[in-house]
């Protein structure tokens, strides 16, 4: 999706003209914001040129106002892959040398999770404008340090929570905040896959380097890699932050593949101050239900992934004559000998639902790298705009911060087998993304 298509999607949803007041973080998508750039170019360095880094390269190549001037990876094959696209870029195997490069204005950090915090802190301190993949950091303290450093230095920091830039999520949240589905009484997230989550390793000593997601030394597993996206939806929909979290995680199936120690099966329950629960479940040894993000209201449900609206309101029953005939028919057809069942399975409704907008691009969630039309490109464009203008997009950093904190807290709850609350020292000012 290019900027024109995104703007067209937004105006189709009725956002034109009101976007700035309701969605301040989308400012970079406006025509005015584009005019601000007036031929200026962003000089970008990419730290981490593995699969996700190359995913961003595909989008950067489509942007006319970007020069990728530096690339960094300590794994040579990945660095060379990226260098094919940018033969003039300087190549580094140490990110600190890239940060010393005065020609680089902004950096895109797509490295293993355990490096996010440290690299972001160093990049901010070096005066660079930063885009870092989610999750924001490896620990609660590190995330807070990153947040505070950005605040102290006043630079630009965006985290890879691309749903904030996906038109179907924006439309769905607007409907939720307008009360279309009534009061939100539940948030249900799940992400199922059936694969071992491994990448091929050219030689055994590179196992942890390539498959860092599987080892708790470098990753928090499913919570930081998958849940982080979905937890942010909950806060966005609810307009508040969870109060406590409990969870259970185990390594159930992929036990003989390698020496991994992150869970392959997790369930977590986040409770909001009003008692509403948000659940997250992920199993990577069964993929039947795929990925789902559902906001449950008293009047209906919105499935964010498929952008479908299902109403709980009873379907119109037809005219009086229709109902009379139906009643006579049911009287004739009913079994008068046996009493009705005292219990029947309440299976899911088969109502087809109503698309919340036309031409929805559905993302299955099966790819570990990324998907087209999931908001990633628009997020990257917002970053490029921020690099050129020096303006931090409003509100999104706090969303990303709390998504990270609650993903990390849930992982802790699973390991400690406790109900946990976020300590006050980790709380930062939060303004809900209400879009009435």
């Amino acid at each position, binding site marked *: 999706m290019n900027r024109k298509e995104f703007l067209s999607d937004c105006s189709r949803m009725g956002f034109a003209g009101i976007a700035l007041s309701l969605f301040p973080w989308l400012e970079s998508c406006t025509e005015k914001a584009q005019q601000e750039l007036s031929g200026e170019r962003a000089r970008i360095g990419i730290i981490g040129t593995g699969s996700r880094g190359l995913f961003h390269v595909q989008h950067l190549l489509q942007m006319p106002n970007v020069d990728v001037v530096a690339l960094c990876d300590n794994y040579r094959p990945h660095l060379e892959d990226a260098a094919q696209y940018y033969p003039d870029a300087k190549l580094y195997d140490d990110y600190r040398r890239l940060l010393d490069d005065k020609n680089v204005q902004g950096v895109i950090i797509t490295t293993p999770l355990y490096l996010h915090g440290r690299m972001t802190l160093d990049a901010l301190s070096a005066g660079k404008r930063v885009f870092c993949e989610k999750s924001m950091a490896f620990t609660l303290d590190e995330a807070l340090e990153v947040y505070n450093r950005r605040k102290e230095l006043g630079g630009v920091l965006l985290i890879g929570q691309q749903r904030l830039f996906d038109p179907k999520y924006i439309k769905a949240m607007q409907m939720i905040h307008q009360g279309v589905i009534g009061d939100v009484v539940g948030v249900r997230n799940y992400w199922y896959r059936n694969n071992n989550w491994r990448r091929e390793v050219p030689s055994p000593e590179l196992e942890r380097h390539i498959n860092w997601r599987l080892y708790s030394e470098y990753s928090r597993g499913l919570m930081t890699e998958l849940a982080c996206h979905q937890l942010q939806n909950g806060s966005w929909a609810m307009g508040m932050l969870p109060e406590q979290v409990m969870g259970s995680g185990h390594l159930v199936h992929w036990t003989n593949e390698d020496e991994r120690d992150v869970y392959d099966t997790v369930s977590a329950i986040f409770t909001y101050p009003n008692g509403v629960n948000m659940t997250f479940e992920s199993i990577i040894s069964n993929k039947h239900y795929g990925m789902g993000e559902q906001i449950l209201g008293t009047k209906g449900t919105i499935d964010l992934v498929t952008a479908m609206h299902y109403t709980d309101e009873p379907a119109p*029953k037809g*005219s*009086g*004559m229709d*109902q*009379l005939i139906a009643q006579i028919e049911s009287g004739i057809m009913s079994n008068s000998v046996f009493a009705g069942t005292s219990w029947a399975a309440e299976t899911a409704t088969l109502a087809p639902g109503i698309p919340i907008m036309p031409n929805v691009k559905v993302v299955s969630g099966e790819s570990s790298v990324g998907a087209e039309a999931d908001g990633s490109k628009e997020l990257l464009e917002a970053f490029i705009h921020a690099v050129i203008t020096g303006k931090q997009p409003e509100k999104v950093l706090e969303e990303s911060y709390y998504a990270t904190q609650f993903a990390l807290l849930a992982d802790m709850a699973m390991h400690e087998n406790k109900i946990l609350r976020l300590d006050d020292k980790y709380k930062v000012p939060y303004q809900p993304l209400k879009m009435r």
Partner: protein
Amino acid sequence: MKDIVFTKAAQKREFYIWLVCFVVANIINVISIIKFQTPWYEIFTQIGYVVVTSLLLYGLVLVVRLAWRIFRGLLAKR
């Protein structure tokens, strides 16, 4: 083959019988509007249903009348 003669008087009688059926169908419509609390404009919007119902009622009455006529003919033969 014998001609079937449908006299003017017979036509008038059949029309009146159907008219009664039509009124009854309308009464059924009104009862269903009250019973199921549906809008009163259904008196007009459901007119197609009412006409079909009146024809069904007329058919039912016709069957009953034919049966009665056959029964009466059999009695007369005795």
